[in-house]
């Protein structure tokens, strides 16, 4: 479908917004269920004698399990669209089915993983399973909805050559890869070790010694997602939103030409410079670790 420039930009903005929400919710879903790399600490904790009340659903690598729920949602949506359902109804039902399948995997994964830790006396808390699983589903439902809606726009409105399930799979995998790279650092690097001094750097000797007490009572995964929703989730959303927006923006404005490719490279160069500025600011703000130590020794 050929659109004028204003309409193309409107569609692109909508896609960017959908991707931002999807990215944010993807990361929060992985935090509330504790998946991907930071989950290694949750897994290790009982072996170090730190029993906890944190959900433990490492179904597979985050991009793959996320791609799985997105592609199921996309497939169901495609089938319903062929049956002449309204697009929104089809996407909602598709997203719900994807979330149910993920919840089944999450439940079996949690039960299985905790069962394998019997010798470390890690209990399987049924109340945690009862109220965390629907929370995982809720996060996953919104993510599926946004990604399938994105795939629907790309396929039906913009005429991408790939079908809705395949586009949903690709965006699901990419959202998972971004969530695993960005938001999970906030969960693994900060929230799991929040009792250490902020910015102290995490010694590998601390592995498995995760925080188990909450602001009130014992910490669970809902407490974790409350914290990560303040920074890790939105940062992931921004990354996926930027990806969707800037990978299409140059060709929307400059067409399918070398100029558009050049603009894409300029966008990347700007991000590189921003990263360098951030690096300078952070190094000036926090300073080196080792020189500080030498200075203290000199003063003594």
């Amino acid at each position, binding site marked *: 479908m050929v659109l004028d420039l204003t309409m193309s930009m409107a569609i692109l903005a909508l896609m960017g917004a959908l991707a931002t929400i999807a990215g944010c919710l993807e990361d929060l879903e992985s935090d509330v269920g504790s998946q991907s*790399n*930071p989950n*290694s600490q949750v897994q290790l904790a009982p072996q170090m004698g730190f029993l906890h009340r944190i959900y433990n659903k490492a179904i597979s*690598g*985050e*991009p*793959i399990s996320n791609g799985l729920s997105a592609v199921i949602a996309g497939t169901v949506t495609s089938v319903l669209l062929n049956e002449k359902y309204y697009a929104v109804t089809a996407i909602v039902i598709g997203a719900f089915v994807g979330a149910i399948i993920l919840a089944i995997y999450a439940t079996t994964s949690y039960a299985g993983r905790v069962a394998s830790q019997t010798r470390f006396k890690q209990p399987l808390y049924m109340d945690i399973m009862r109220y965390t699983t629907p929370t995982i589903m809720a996060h996953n439902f919104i993510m599926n909805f946004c990604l399938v809606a994105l795939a629907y726009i*790309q396929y039906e409105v*913009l*005429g*991408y*050559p*790939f*079908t809705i399930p*395949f586009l949903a799979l*690709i965006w699901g*995998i*990419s959202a998972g*890869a*971004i969530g*695993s*790279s*960005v938001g999970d*650092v*906030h969960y693994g*690097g*900060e929230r*799991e*070790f929040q009792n250490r001094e902020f*910015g*102290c*750097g*995490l*010694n*590998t*000797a601390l*592995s498995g010694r995760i925080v188990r007490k909450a602001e009130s009572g014992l910490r669970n995964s809902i407490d974790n997602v409350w914290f990560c929703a303040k*920074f*890790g989730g939105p*940062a992931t959303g921004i*990354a996926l939103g*930027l*990806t969707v927006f*800037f*990978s299409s923006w140059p*060709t929307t404005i400059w067409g*399918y030409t*070398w100029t558009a*490719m050049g603009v*894409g*490279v300029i966008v*990347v160069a700007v*991000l590189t410079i921003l*990263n*360098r500025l951030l*690096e300078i600011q*952070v*190094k000036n703000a926090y300073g080196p*670790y*080792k020189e500080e130590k030498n200075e203290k020794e000199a003063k003594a």
Partner: protein
Amino acid sequence: MVAIDPNLLYVLLIAISGTLICAAVHFIPVGGAPAAMAQATGIGTGTVELAAGSGLVGLITASYMYAYEPLASMALVMAAGAMGSMVMLASTMFAGSLVYAYGVAVPFASAQVKKDPITGQRQDTYISKGTQGQGIPTICFVSGVVGAGLGGAGGGLIYFSLMQIYTPLIAASAAAVAGVFTMGVFYVNSVIPSYGVGGTIEGVHDPKFRRVIGKDVFTSFAISLLCGIVAVFIAQGMMV
């Protein structure tokens, strides 16, 4: 001069692009699980996840370029793939840096070099005790962007080659078959370097890079050649 059979040419192109993807993975700074706890330099996820994630965004941009400019040159389709991948990885690394900077509060430092080869800034003093560096310093960022560009270009080349093979046979669903096959070749060539780098690599400046890239690239060429042959063979079944 002997004319090369077009199918043989496409098999070779697929082998070359697979090799390009394999080489690209070595450029991307992945720190695996330790990086997710800010205990190693690089992006806090696995090689396969990240290379495939960025490469697939490149596949979307390359396929759209091919669909809307059927006469687009091979170089333009490759450039579209490279652009998509580079944007994805640059956005991810920048957002990751924001979390390292303000969420975890650690200065970026490489554990493999004393000074950043691009900025010349000291690295070793910024490494916190008991870790292998943290965050994404400039050299890692640039190396990652270059790697994503190579990977995306490789993905675009595979898609272009496969479309040339399949379009005359199954015009309607050629894009779907080519897309799925490209994704498969991507995963194959993202897994091969994982064995070589052993889960973590900082990028082009890491001594591991020089140590393993030769073997990995050779392995990847052989496997991708096989993938190319399979791609041509399955096309025989479409001639009904």
